[in-house]
């Protein structure tokens, strides 16, 4: 376990070196939030509420959703790269779990981005754009747990794409197509309140709304009491399901590789 914690720490430290990067990252996230809010302001026009949803709720959804989108970034081609440059053979020899190691690397990156990108942009957005306050103090804690679970779902989905590297030549296309689904259906670009009900019925059977939308709903108090635990359960179930698929691919995929001499 300590090996993986050390890895998280090292990746975190490595990121600290590139100061200009995270200042530019904050500006970029703020610009995206700022412009998205302008678009929605134009859409609302003179209306105060549409379908019972106020502009402030939409803005809050963007600040959290887009902020997390910029923090949750996982390199889907990590296995493919290791297979191509041959380092995969060496990794297999090391006494570590490769997938846990990849997860540790990702966690280091994401922890760093949450602290240096998400939080500063959130604070800037609270000051300049105005974000609805959470319904109560507990909602913040509950939604933070949900963010962690949401990341779990996102990571497990990425993990499946990573594993396809054993079969397909280039995971880039699959990864890009997966991202299209996440972007449209997870609620970061389009608040799911405005999804037509027919599509919404389908989304209920997919993992996508567990990623960004559930934490937002808990934060705004749309889910409370027992509902919160039901939705946690749903997020956890998707993590288990997607991770199992990834594990099956991993077991079969590893058998396929042939390692030739150096």
């Amino acid at each position, binding site marked *: 376990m300590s090996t993986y914690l050390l890895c998280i720490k090292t990746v975190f430290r490595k990121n600290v070196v590139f100061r200009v990067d995270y200042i*530019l990252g904050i500006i970029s996230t703020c610009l995206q939030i700022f412009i998205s809010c*302008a678009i929605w*302001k134009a859409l609302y026009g003179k209306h105060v509420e549409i379908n019972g949803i106020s502009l402030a709720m939409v803005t809050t959804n963007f600040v959290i959703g887009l902020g997390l989108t910029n923090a949750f970034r996982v390199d889907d081609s990590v296995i493919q790269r290791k297979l191509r440059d041959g380092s995969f053979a060496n990794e297999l020899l090391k006494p570590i779990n490769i997938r846990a190691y990849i997860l540790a690397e990702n966690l280091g990156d994401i922890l760093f981005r949450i602290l240096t990108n998400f939080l500063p942009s959130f604070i800037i957005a609270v000051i300049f754009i105005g974000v609805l306050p959470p319904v109560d103090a507990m909602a913040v804690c509950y939604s933070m747990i949900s963010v962690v679970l949401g990341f779990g779902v996102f990571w497990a989905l990425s993990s499946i794409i990573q594993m396809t590297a054993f079969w397909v030549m280039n995971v880039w*296309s*699959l990864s890009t197509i997966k991202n299209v689904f996440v972007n449209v259906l997870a609620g970061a670009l389009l608040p799911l309140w*405005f999804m037509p009900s027919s599509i919404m019925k389908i989304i209920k059977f997919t993992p996508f709304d567990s990623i960004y939308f559930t934490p937002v709903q808990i934060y705004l108090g749309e889910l409370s009491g027992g509902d919160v635990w039901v939705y946690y359960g749903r997020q956890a179930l998707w993590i288990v399901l997607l991770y199992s698929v990834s594990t099956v691919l991993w077991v079969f995929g590893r058998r396929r590789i042939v390692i030739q001499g150096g």
Partner: protein
Amino acid sequence: MKDPSDNPLWMYFFYSHNTMKSWFQYRVDAILRSLAVFLREATGIIVIYITLTKFDDIGGWNIDELLFLFSLIFITYGILIIFFTGLRDFENIIYDGSFDRLILRPRGLLFQVIASNSDWFAAIGHGGLGIVLFIYSAGRVNIHWNTITILYYLAAVLGGVLIQGAMFLVFAILSFFIVKASKAQELIYWNMRKFSGYPISIFPKFVQYMMMYVVPFAFVNYFPAQYLLRKDDMHQYPEIYLYITPLIGIAMYFIAYLFWRYSIKFYKSTGT
């Protein structure tokens, strides 16, 4: 006998033929990649299309007019990327040292950078999406297509390609002076491009000025579309802006080219 490689056009086709061969080496992969680009770029369109089923319009623009506005961005980019891929990836060309190799060859530098690569998947993905959107929206919006409007449209597309090409050229030149110029391009160019499909009149003044005078996407799609559509929100901008897209394209590209000729003297190899 005259050497055929003296003819730049012949040279260009020779280069293109080779890049196409390498890009389409793996058929299935090529189709999947083009499809992925197409879908990735369509994301924003799908989102706004679904959104506008619940709202009437955005700043007075209905969905068909909005898609027409988007189509200009994608069509111009699809054409642009056939020619300017080398400038998009210019930083890499400098880093891996292949720029040094180009300097040694007895042909124009910019010509070689432009001719040596074309991102065909981006061209198919962006261009394809642009054409789909154009076909869908051109008949539905209130445009009277005749010889003049068609000629204007073609000139505007050409101007739009040149405007974006000039921006690519400027960002490429920046890599002579600063390390990681792509960061600046990411922040200024690509971030603004994400929102360039919307009518600029809905944005705060600051963003409008950025779109008109810093990264002039407004002249790529908004003003040409306004010439054809004449929406009400045009009255806040000078009327002359409707006509000058091609001129701006030529002028920007010419100035960027002079800047390139001047800056090339400062190039220092990275030594790799």
